[in-house]
């Protein structure tokens, strides 16, 4: 049983699905910054006589998301019409899913170690987005506007609504839930998950457990456009409700808007309209029956989930949890580090280098890893050289900066900096060794007379040779050639 007064939070998250075209027509979904009402057609404008046709790619993306959450994907699901009048809704109904959503059940894991918790998922369903109203008033609100304009570019953009069970206990957990879900959709490549742009919108249902341990009256909060706003809004709302209860007043069931500037939630003024959406099965769309093998195929092309990847980085590579968390935050970054390791770099070396050097460059340039000019197969040889002692870290940083600035490979950069180009081998390596042996003749004598049982002197000689070669020699070849010179 829940503690009286403890918060109960459930989240409904609308995720814009990043397909190229809309849910029921071929119009582009790339509406941000577009001239209003240019990404429209008879279908998404709800022109009389037009009909919707489901975009199969959206179904693929949604199924992948459902599978990642461990949800059960319905073999035969269907769409309903949700009827209400509003100017941004061109057909005066939204095509959504109601009694047979695309997927049900599943969970999203959040937290680490002792704090690890699975937040159960109720359902995942598909629906179309509405257009956007632009109010003429200076404050952008309807109330003071002389007129309002409608832009239907966003109308019909595919949305996945992911509903959690009310099993989130704190604003911090809610924040982590959303952050994890955002990371998930980015990993799957099904959405950019950008809260500021509105590609990921969170509505929260909040109540406080009553004295009898039962659920209290729930309040829905909307308009939280960042993780910080979400956490602040929930903090505020929980305090507000607790205050009401303390004063012996009752919590009203309502929808409240988060006002980020003033840091408070405010109720929608006036009477709460009881909505009757008159849901009924969409007669323009047959049941959505997934063909045999459809779900399996999506499962086969799913990437590793970020939380599993993180665990693997810790157990297989011995990275710290913090390193692993940073490197798995974005799918591109984790792919990059994996590529480096595959190309021969030591995982810890790669992790350090990426966290410090690569992220520094990305932050400076304000770009993502996808636009980073040094591919993993170029960075990896540099890291290997550091590990082999062929390059000092300081020199390596100079080389790296050159690689970034001019788009060079490690070898090209080394050459430009004036370090000997290419490896010292054969004749040139022998010349270097001869020079060192001449200079260190006493050590040579000691080795030849058997006074170096632990190979300390030999090691010293190798180091001297590598130094002379400015790190540009293969340690193994150095050791072998040296043995030949020493005759033992």
């Amino acid at each position, binding site marked *: 049983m829940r503690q009286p007064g403890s918060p109960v939070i459930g989240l409904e998250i609308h995720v814009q699905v990043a397909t190229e075209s809309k849910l029921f027509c071929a119009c582009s979904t790339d509406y941000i910054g577009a001239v209003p009402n240019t990404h429209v057609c*008879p279908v998404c*404008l*709800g*022109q*009389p*006589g*037009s*009909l*919707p*046709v*489901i975009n199969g790619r959206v179904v693929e993306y949604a199924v992948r998301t459902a599978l990642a959450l461990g949800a059960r994907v319905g073999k035969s699901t269907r769409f309903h*019409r949700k*009827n209400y*009048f509003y*100017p941004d809704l*061109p*057909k*005066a*109904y939204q095509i959504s899913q109601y009694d047979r959503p695309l997927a049900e059940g599943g969970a999203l894991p959040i937290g680490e170690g002792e704090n690890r918790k699975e937040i159960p998922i109720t359902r995942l369903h598909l629906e179309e987005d509405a257009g956007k109203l632009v109010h003429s008033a200076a404050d952008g609100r309807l109330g003071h506007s002389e007129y309002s304009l*409608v832009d239907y570019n966003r109308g019909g953009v595919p949305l996945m609504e992911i509903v959690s069970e009310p099993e989130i206990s704190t604003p911090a957990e809610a924040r982590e839930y959303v952050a994890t879900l955002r990371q998930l959709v980015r990993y799957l490549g099904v959405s950019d998950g950008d809260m500021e742009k509105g590609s990921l919108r969170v509505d929260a249902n909040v109540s406080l457990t009553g004295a009898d341990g039962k659920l209290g009256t729930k309040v829905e909060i909307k308009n939280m456009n960042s993780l910080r706003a979400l956490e602040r809004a929930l903090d505020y709302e929980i305090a507000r409700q607790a205050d009401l209860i303390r004063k012996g007043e009752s919590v009203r069931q309502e929808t409240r808007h988060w006002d980020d500037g003033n840091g408070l939630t405010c109720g929608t003024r006036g009477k709460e309209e009881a909505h*009757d959406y*008159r*849901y*009924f099965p969409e*007669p*323009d*769309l*047959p049941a959505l029956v997934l063909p045999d093998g459809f779900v399996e195929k999506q499962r086969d092309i799913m990437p590793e989930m970020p939380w599993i990847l993180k665990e693997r980085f810790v157990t297989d590579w011995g990275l710290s949890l913090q390193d692993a968390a940073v490197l798995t935050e974005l799918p591109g970054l984790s792919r990059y580090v994996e590529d480096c390791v595959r190309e021969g770099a030591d995982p810890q070396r790669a992790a350090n280098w990426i966290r410090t050097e690569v992220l520094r460059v990305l932050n400076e340039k304000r770009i993502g890893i996808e636009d980073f000019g040094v591919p993993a197969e170029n960075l990896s040889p540099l890291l290997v050289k550091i590990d082999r002692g062929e390059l000092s870290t300081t020199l390596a940083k100079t080389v790296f900066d050159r690689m970034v600035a001019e788009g060079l490979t490690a070898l090209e950069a080394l050459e430009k900096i004036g370090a000997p180009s290419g490896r010292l081998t054969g004749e040139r390596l022998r010349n270097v060794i001869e020079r060192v042996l001449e200079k260190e003749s006493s050590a040579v004598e000691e080795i030849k007379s058997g006074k170096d049982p632990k190979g300390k002197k030999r090691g010293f000689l190798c180091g001297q040779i590598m130094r002379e070669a400015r790190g540009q020699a293969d340690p193994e070849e150095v050791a072998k050639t040296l043995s030949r010179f020493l005759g033992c």
Partner: protein
Amino acid sequence: MNRLQMSAADLARAVKNREVSAAENVQASIARIEEVEGRVHALLTPLFDRALEKAAQIDQKVGKGEDPGPLAGVPVIVKDNLCMRGLKTTCGSRMLENWRPPYDASTVRFMEEAGAVILGKANMDEFAMGSSTENSAFFPTLNPWDLDRVPGGSSGGSAASVACGYAPLALGSDTGGSIRQPAAFCGVYGLKPTYGLISRYGLVAFASSLDQVGPFSRSVEDLALVLNVLAKPDPADATSSRRERPDFMTFLGKENLKGLRVGVVSEFEAYPVQPEIKEAMERVQNILREAGARFSCVNLPTTIEAGLPCYYIIAPAEASSNLARYDGVRYGLSVEARNLGDLYMKTRGRGFGAEVKRRILTGTYVLSSGYYDAYYLVALKARTKISREFKEAFQDVDMLLMPTTPTLPFRQGENVEDPIQMYLGDVFTLPVNLASLPGLSLNAGYSKTGLPVGIQLVGPQWGEGTLLAAAEAVERVLGKPACAFGGV
């Protein structure tokens, strides 16, 4: 033979063989329309100039030796709820009085691609709601055989056009009888195809799960010819069946109907119909029996008991949602208003006629929370049961024979004040829509007063071929339906 009496098949052959030009066909039709239209009022928008241009294009094609298509130079009338790009498509409503769709209905495109020349848009009951064309917001169409009487509806303008010889073919739509009933009242053929045979894309929706586009003609061969043009799978309509279509011409030219099992519905036999209709039933039965068909009785108890109420719940429910988009925001009528709610009320208050409002109210009511289960859900169950009942009947018979209507064409104004009486006239047609079946109304002669009498053939899903073969057998005996006003 008089050109106005010629079938579409003969006209197309003549154009292809350069015996007549498409332009001559169109000019003859225009002359006929100018002669008769002042009395009948079948057309809302004549498209004569456009038709002459299109005809010239066809003649050019013929001149160049290109294939002008199976309907080369055949004049056609189209119901005004089928979209034609840039041309008025009013649906018989003030709401869309000046609306010009930005796209063509698929069926319009198919017809024009086949060489048909569209001469005008036909009058109809507002949004296809009605059985007399008296619900047109503009003017009523009159029955060509008796100007005091109604032509039926809602496709009254299309049926009257074909009866008057404006064109050998017209397109209509049928949601509960809107092709077959006016075909019967005007003495022509009217075919409501299996749901999903013909695309609905660009047909302004009344009740999406019941609407089908279909043809009117004065010959069975023309029905087959135009089905070959119209019955294509359409990716723009998700409810369009993907099954392969037969060549409908192959069902014609059968020597006899040996082996054909025809059912008469016991419950319908007991239903009170006018004596002329009973006589026509017997006439057709005798012809079919003569041609080799065997008769038996089938029972459709649920259909007769629940069909009408079931239809008048489902159709208005869907209509209330389909017509919600006419809100004055994007297109169509928009009445000056103080605020959004006012805009909705004034626009819809003025834009819709009484029957449309009646159905929107009914539909909204049956979908409302608290009533959904008692009305809409029960109707859906009844619909399933009716479909099953027909399916079972079609295990014993290949086709059903029934009246199209219980009465002969009624007088103008006779049923206007009594919507229930009007609804009862659909008793034989609407179960066919509920069960998604094909239905063909044929002219089976005339009453003593010279009014046409229609009889209906109903087949199992995708059974159009059987209906064509049986109708042809009747046509051989009774002849092709005559033109009203005796041709020219």
